[in-house]
């Protein structure tokens, strides 16, 4: 069991194909190109707490970006029927500062073992998971900036 735990401590973002905002397929490994830490948040049009969490991040983003250099990746897990809706939805929420990804057959969701949303990860510049949390209640977003600031 100990050896399993030591293996799992290196968990990182796997390389999976997802759609970007243009509908073009890209590999998640390209997110590491700029070496910036990132908040990765899984959401869907029918997940109210996910939307509240991304709104809270969006609200705080102008302040947080002054404290640390990082990016926010919003991964929509909506099926193909809602991919178009999710894009319009993201525009209508004003999430223009986020990198928007569309995981329409939940490949990335499964690869990162996300079973319930909201699910949020903080990754360092090499893609290693340094913080993760399931569920959102108002106020939890403060944990994210704390985790980002801890990354050296």
């Amino acid at each position, binding site marked *: 069991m100990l050896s399993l735990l030591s293996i799992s401590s290196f968990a990182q973002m796997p390389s999976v194909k997802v759609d970007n905002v243009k509908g073009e397929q890209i590999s998640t490994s390209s997110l590491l190109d700029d070496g910036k830490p990132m908040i990765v948040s899984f959401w869907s049009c029918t997940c109210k707490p996910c939307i509240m969490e991304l709104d809270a991040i969006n609200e705080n983003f102008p302040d947080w970006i002054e404290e640390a250099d990082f990016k926010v990746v919003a991964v929509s897990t909506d099926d193909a029927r809602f991919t178009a809706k999710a894009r319009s939805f993201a525009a209508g929420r004003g999430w223009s500062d986020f990198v928007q990804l569309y995981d329409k057959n939940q490949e990335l969701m499964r690869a990162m073992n996300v079973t319930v949303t909201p699910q949020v990860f903080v990754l360092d510049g090499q893609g290693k998971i340094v913080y993760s949390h399931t569920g959102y*209640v108002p106020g939890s977003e403060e944990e994210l900036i704390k985790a980002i600031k801890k990354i050296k």
Partner: protein
Amino acid sequence: MFVAFLLVAGGALAVAAERPDSEDEAVENKSEKSRGYLSGSFETNTTLYHKDVKTSATVPDSKFGSNNYLKLDYYNNRFSAGIQLEAYSPVLVGYPAELEKAALTNYYVSWTDKSFSVTAGTFYEQFGSGLLFRSWEDRALGLNNAVMGARVSYNYKDIVAVKALWGLPRFGMSFSDTQVRGADASVSISNAAGWNNVYFDVQGSVLSRYEALDADSEIDGCKANTTGWSARTNFETSGFYLKGEYVDAGLKYYYNTSYAGTGDMYYKKRGNAQLIETGYNNGGLGVGLTLRRMEWMGSKIINSNSSTSNMLNYIPAICTQYTYMLTTLHPYSARTGDLTESFRNSGELGGQLDVYYNFRRGTKLGGKRGMKIHANFSNYYTIYKEGTFAAGNVLFRDFSIDWEKQWTKQFKSILLYSLQQYNPSYGADKNLWTSHIVVADLLYKYSKSFSTRLELQYLHTKADRKDWVAAMLEVNFAPSWSIYVSDMFNHGSTMLNYYNGGVAYTRSRTRVALNYGRYKAGYICSGGVCRQIPAYTGLNLTVTTSF
């Protein structure tokens, strides 16, 4: 054929292992060497049922139901492998009955590099929007139609992507005897031409399905092999997008229930669908229009089985999927064709329009903290005459508008109005149930870690069980605790309360939730696909954890 395919896959894998790839090596050097890492998840959804005379609640003999999933994945650079174990002891009330006992249901090994991947074992896949073929997992529906076989994919730069697969779709706890073979390709014209501000691609798929036939259907001219295809295109520039998809799903055979020894034992129908998605998203405005027409598009793993989890493609209802209790009483399911003696309908046609707008902070209407509005109109009809675009009876119609406003740092409100029209005969006649629903969703943050959320809902209708009223109060202590109580009361007809309450605790990636309540018979919908559930009352424990 399977052996031949595996040989090809294995050969390709060996070639890939030999290929020098400097970018991959760079990634490899960055990551932890050799040991790799393990990721996994566990979920249990367990209910203790009891009698409830007022709702005629279903109580299984065991008085207990439990759905359990354990998934483990190991990653080491380009290599990954994983398993999934499922146990139903027994399956929860309302889930497909073929889910029973325990089994190692899914297992795979996979190799992925920048341009090449090969998977042997179980895998999930989707061609285009999934109208032709989709294999996926949706635990809320009790669906997992992962394919057991092999899949190879290759992409040349960001221009060409191709994939091919072969396998046996999973049905229930094992793999079916049905075989699927498919291929999918996409070519990015804009990337090939080096256009910067425009994205344009063309895509195509083909899927062949084989299921051995019984002697009767062979005599009647049915074929064991059916082949379908789809062609697609995708265009985007400066926030404007246009997507189109045409599907010819091949021949489908429907048993003639009134067959009496003469005439055709089977109806032979050609499945076809047309899908257009277009819209514009920019600067706080999001507009999306989806139009879809389809005939005979149901695609089953096993033709003679009628389980809700028996599907090989994805044919969702394209309309708003609500989360508020009273807005989901009459959900719409897409129609894939009816062939009864009294009613024939080849499918459905319709669409939806969404408009989202964000009034930014500092503008006149946005005020200090911004304001968001959203409107949706969805409208679906039967097909008046098979093979045409003529609309028949209304199947479902919904107009909704919601308005969200952050009034102060502490207080936010969402107001929703929805006008829904639902055809209880699935289009056989023109009779519609019309409902007006209003919802107020009020969030108040007392401090950074303490908040409450109150939902007040009312549904007015002259049809079905007349008027309903509902309320929900949620108390949250960030980041770990959440407690709620709710009640849904039918004061128009049955005078029954559907009460519910629960507590949830979250720590890191573990969530434990305990709920007690009374649930009405109806539908559970996920991803636009619904399954019917009976009434039940009981105590539910859900634990999810992942690492």
